[in-house]
């Protein structure tokens, strides 16, 4: 299944084309070929994805969409090295086979409450991945930087339960940022938050993205969110699923919650993604 | 899958095998005296002991005595526990003016009352019954209070909305909502009643499984002791299982389906 990297929107606004040539030349961060996933249970294996092919290029912001059960999260767990695909699949990170979490690739989970350690303060949670790997002084600095980046500098000594959901998710993001990641894998990170918190976190994420230059793979079921954040949207279709569409988002950065979301290009793409998700494979 | 093969599939073969292996190891240990315990009987000797007890008619009357005391004591304890629990659960005044007393008394391990009741009632069936009733009241009482006071506020609002009288509310909303927790208390009570019956028999009332156990100990007959302990265990499992099936017959099936995992 080839995912076309061609802009499918002929009527995309010409003003904000983000040099497609440059994108092609960028290094391939993740390369997935013939990716097939089977999840085993006592009743036998279920095939979730079949022969999925796609590349993630360095510095790219990619969203993965699809109906629930289409294997978005599974795909992300495979990229993060938390789950192994079938042996004949090939998943490479800068040319290396992914076997276990690759260095520099950090996953941010939807369930922030379950992924933070309740017995550690905010700063100690953020420091978790650094302990024993960098010096004390550097760890302290990185933790402070990361917390400042997500606007939580003042809550460093609090325990997670004292923080709102949005803040807890910021802590998780800070914990990832403290690792100076080259890739952020985000699994519906804002899915459990209310609409207002969600938009402000989206903007913060975009700022972080600009500043760190990290590659982001973002799983979401919110079309607006995917389009607003990404350079490209992959849509999973079918059962077992494959990449049905790969839609570049030609909206200029920095983006704006109102203007970007009301631009014609955005609205047209929104319709396309919606149709791609709803389409049935018979 | 037919229900029969399913049931066969559900038999825990590795588990039973482990149990059999352990019993085998025990047997071997005793046969070849790998461990130096003079009074450790082999499983085969215990089985023989149990058969002797059954044949000589020593076992059944003792089991029946313990069973009878347990059931009578438990019934009395349940009536007291539920009655008192409803009173304390429904009346905030009664609760406020007595709960600390109950909690202080509850802190005293009931086992220590065994010598005291022995002083008062002597070696008798009465002594055994008093102990069994006393120990059985606690879980029923505590769970009844908890169940009644834990009735969700929405349910009480519903009662008010439908203009139920307070008696109707108690009868149709509060007590039914508290039944699952009361049942848990009753089950705990049943187990405790049995255990304390055996203990009371060991110390005070010369009858039943507990007394037979002590007599076997004095006669240095470990295989009989094991047989009596096993009987007490089987009695406990049986009572528990009977209670569970009775309770599940009384209650609607839980919304979340049965609890996972093999027992």
């Amino acid at each position, binding site marked *: 299944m080839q995912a076309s990297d061609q802009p499918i929107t002929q009527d995309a606004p010409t003003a904000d084309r983000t040099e497609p040539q440059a994108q092609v030349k960028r290094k391939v961060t993740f390369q997935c070929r013939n990716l097939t996933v089977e999840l085993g249970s006592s009743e036998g294996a279920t095939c979730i994805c079949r022969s999925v092919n796609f590349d993630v290029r360095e510095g790219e912001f990619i969203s993965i969409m699809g109906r629930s059960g289409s294997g978005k999260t599974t795909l992300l767990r495979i990229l993060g090295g938390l789950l192994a695909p079938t042996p004949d699949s090939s998943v490479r990170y800068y040319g290396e086979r992914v076997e276990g979490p690759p260095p520099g690739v950090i996953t941010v989970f939807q369930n922030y409450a*379950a*992924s933070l350690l309740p017995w550690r303060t905010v700063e100690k949670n953020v420091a978790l991945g650094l302990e024993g790997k960098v010096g004390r002084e550097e760890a302290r600095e990185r933790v402070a930087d990361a917390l400042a980046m997500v606007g939580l500098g003042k809550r460093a000594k609090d325990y997670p339960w004292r923080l709102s959901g949005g803040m807890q998710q910021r802590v998780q993001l800070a914990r990832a940022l403290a690792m100076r990641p080259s890739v952020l894998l985000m699994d519906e990170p804002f899915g459990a938050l209310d609409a207002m918190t969600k938009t402000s976190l989206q903007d913060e994420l975009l700022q972080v993205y600009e500043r760190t230059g990290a590659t982001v793979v973002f799983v979401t079921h919110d079309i607006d969110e995917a389009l607003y954040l990404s350079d490209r949207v992959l849509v999973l279709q079918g059962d077992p699923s494959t990449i049905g569409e790969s839609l570049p988002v030609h909206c200029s950065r920095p983006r704006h919650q109102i203007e970007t979301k009301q631009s014609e290009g955005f609205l047209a793409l929104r319709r396309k993604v919606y149709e791609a998700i709803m389409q049935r494979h018979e | 899958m037919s229900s029969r093969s399913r049931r066969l599939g559900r038999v825990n073969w590795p588990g039973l095998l482990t149990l059999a292996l352990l019993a085998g190891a025990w047997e071997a240990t005793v046969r070849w005296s790998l461990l130096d315990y003079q009074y450790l009987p082999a499983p085969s000797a215990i089985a023989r002991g149990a058969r002797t007890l059954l044949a000589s008619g020593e076992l059944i009357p003792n089991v029946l005595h313990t069973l009878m005391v347990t059931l009578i004591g438990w019934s009395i304890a349940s009536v007291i526990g539920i009655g008192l629990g409803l009173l304390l659960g429904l009346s*905030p005044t009664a609760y406020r003016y007595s709960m600390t007393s109950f909690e*202080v008394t509850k802190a005293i*391990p009931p*086992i220590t009352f065994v010598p*005291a009741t022995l002083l008062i009632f002597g070696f008798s069936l009465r002594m055994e019954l008093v102990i069994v009733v006393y120990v059985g009241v606690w879980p029923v009482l505590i769970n009844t209070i908890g169940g009644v006071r834990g009735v969700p506020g929405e349910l009480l609002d519903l009662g008010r909305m439908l203009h139920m009288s307070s008696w109707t509310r108690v009868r149709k909303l509060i007590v039914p909502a508290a039944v699952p927790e009361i049942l848990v208390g009753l089950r705990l009570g049943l187990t405790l009643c049995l255990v304390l019956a055996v203990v009371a028999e060991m110390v005070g009332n010369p009858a039943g499984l507990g007394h037979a156990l*002590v007599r076997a*100990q004095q006669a240095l007959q470990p295989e009989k002791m094991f047989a009596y302990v096993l009987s007490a265990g089987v009695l406990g499992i049986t009572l528990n299982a009977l209670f569970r099936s009775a309770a599940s017959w009384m209650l609607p099936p839980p919304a979340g389906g049965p609890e996972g995992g093999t027992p």
Partner: protein
Amino acid sequence: MTAQTATRPDSGRQQSAREERGNRKRTTPFPLLRGLLPLVVLLSVWELAGSPGSPYFPPPSTWGSALIALWENGVLLAAVVATLTTFSIALGAATVLGAGVGLVVGGSPAADRALGPTFEFARAMPPAAMVPIATLLLGYDETMKVTVVTLAAIWAILLNTRAGVRRIDQTLLDAARSLQLGKLDRIRKVIVPALLPAIFLGVRVAAPIAVVITLLVEILTNVEGVGALIAQSQRTFQPARVYALIVVAGALSFLVNAVLGAIESYVFRYRPSTAGGGE
């Protein structure tokens, strides 16, 4: 809706329930003392009506003098120390063994299946009834006491640990792996702290059982301890001493609970408020 019901005038039952809970948390002495009333009345009536020479119900004041006498000749202290020693060693052993086995059984469904029936069988044997067997096999000594109490206390800890292992969120383990934590670090920094509440809950449930079984073993076997002292006082017809020692036993079990509660709120001070521990 909560606020609504609270302001409604006729929701007396609920309001008072909430007030009661609130009060208990703030530990104002007043409602607690108020609740002591029936006990105080009972003891006062007993004091006034009972005759000091009664072989059954000597008044509470005689308990006091019996206690003082026991304290003065050092018997009481020795007994309390003996009981607490057995209790602590046994609870410690039960915690280590129970948590260890619970960890294995919770982590491996195969081990759980293989050991399940054996555990079920062993657990069904009433520990009280095991006492005579234990004395026959091990003799009348500390080892026997500790063994019986450990075997009685281990199940609550084992089962709670097993449940705790099963409840650990996969996300937590994924997060630790994603952050490149090594296996040892994952166990030390994530899994063990995540299990502590479950293990501790097990200990909270096991502790009263351990107290009861310790006293029971002492009552049945007369190996030194508070239980043995009670049984001995009963056999020598000293009712005042029996009642006094019952109070001591109650105080001991209260103390054990309070100490464990303090440890719990210290260890889990990161948790919101005092989450109600075990029963």
